[in-house]
């Protein structure tokens, strides 16, 4: 138990998860970050992807955006979009995926948005499989 730390996922209207784990992988804006106990204090924000909790990735959450703070062995994930993988139904994933694919065709959007959307499409099609 000594190598575990606290994990909390909070959305504006609910506390989604409060547990402890020894490894959490988060899709940070610039790439995935694996966090272990005694990681140095960190603040970052998320791109669309999967949060994997536990060494085997026991729990997975799909997120679109959010903010992460890690300090004193407390991992805090603030997001308005986290959904547990099991609770997503296939149809909503597909419509979401279609939406994203439509949007990315639009040339008016900025590079940053394109970057985010491409990750959303990748993650969603991975889940969809």
């Amino acid at each position, binding site marked *: 138990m000594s190598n575990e730390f606290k994990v909390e996922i909070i959305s504006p209207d609910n506390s989604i998860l409060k547990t402890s784990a020894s490894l959490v992988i988060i899709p940070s804006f610039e790439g995935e970050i694996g966090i272990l106990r005694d990681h140095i*204090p960190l603040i970052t924000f998320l791109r669309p992807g999967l949060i994997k909790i536990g060494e085997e990735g026991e729990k997975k959450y799909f997120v679109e955006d959010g*903010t992460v703070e890690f300090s004193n062995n407390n991992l805090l994930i603030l997001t308005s979009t986290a959904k547990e993988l099991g609770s997503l139904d296939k149809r909503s994933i597909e419509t979401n995926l279609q939406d994203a694919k439509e949007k990315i065709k639009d040339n008016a959007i900025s590079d940053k948005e394109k970057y985010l959307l491409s990750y959303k499409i990748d993650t969603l099609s991975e889940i969809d499989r």
Partner: protein
Amino acid sequence: MPSLDDLKKRIKSVKSTQKITKAMKMVAAAKLRKAQENAEKGRPYSQKMQNIILNLTKSINDPENAPKLLVGTGKDETYLCVVLTADRGLCGGFNSNICKLAKTNFKKILNEGKKLKIITVGSKGLDQIKREYGKYVIKKFSFKEKKQITFTEADIVGKEIIDLFKNGQFDKCILFFNNFKNVITQVPQAQQIVPAENKSVDLKEEKSNIYEFEPDEDEILEDLLPKNISTQVFKAFLENAASEQGSRMTAMDNATRNAGELVDKLTINYNRSRQASITKELIEIISGAESL
């Protein structure tokens, strides 16, 4: 002296009013429990968001280039006031309290010779404000048809505020809402959200951690600050929703009690005049019999 029939009708009408207020009280009590739960659940998010921003602010080494949303435009010419009220009445002083606080602030701002812009959320506040300050209202929101207010609605209002800010439409933004303390007490509050207020930087936090930032502070702040505004608006929504129900419950409880008192009084009156008419008839009969 009202006739017996009138009194009877009056008692009946007061009783049916009492029934309505009692029902409203029950409904408000049920809704209150849910709203209160939501408000309490929503608190950690906004608090922690504020904490992160606080930590970020401290580690910014170049305040002049910091995002404008955090440090402000450097002027305080134009004020944007966002007044959050309910869409329904019959909740005691709930709406008036917010409006009263907002109006004192409006007066102060105008007296100082500054420009004023108002956004109202909820129709009741608009009704009270437009009489005096109608020409300052630039935008009105109403989520009447929504059963429950979610983050999406707060986001709409938040985005509007950010858009206005980006266009240089205002320098400072203040939110007006009722803070839910408990069922009986709701405190109207004015909270400044742009630029972010850092009054809670106290001494004991000084030994806080040195954070690693990914990508860097500025980019995180730029992503986080707009979100924070929506979050603060959402928090205000939740507090307001709980306060509205609490306030309505107390108001309806009082109304029910008052109606009860009125019924008691009227019933005494009714009985007295009934007794009076019986006595009168008796006297008439007796004096009639005597004269025979």
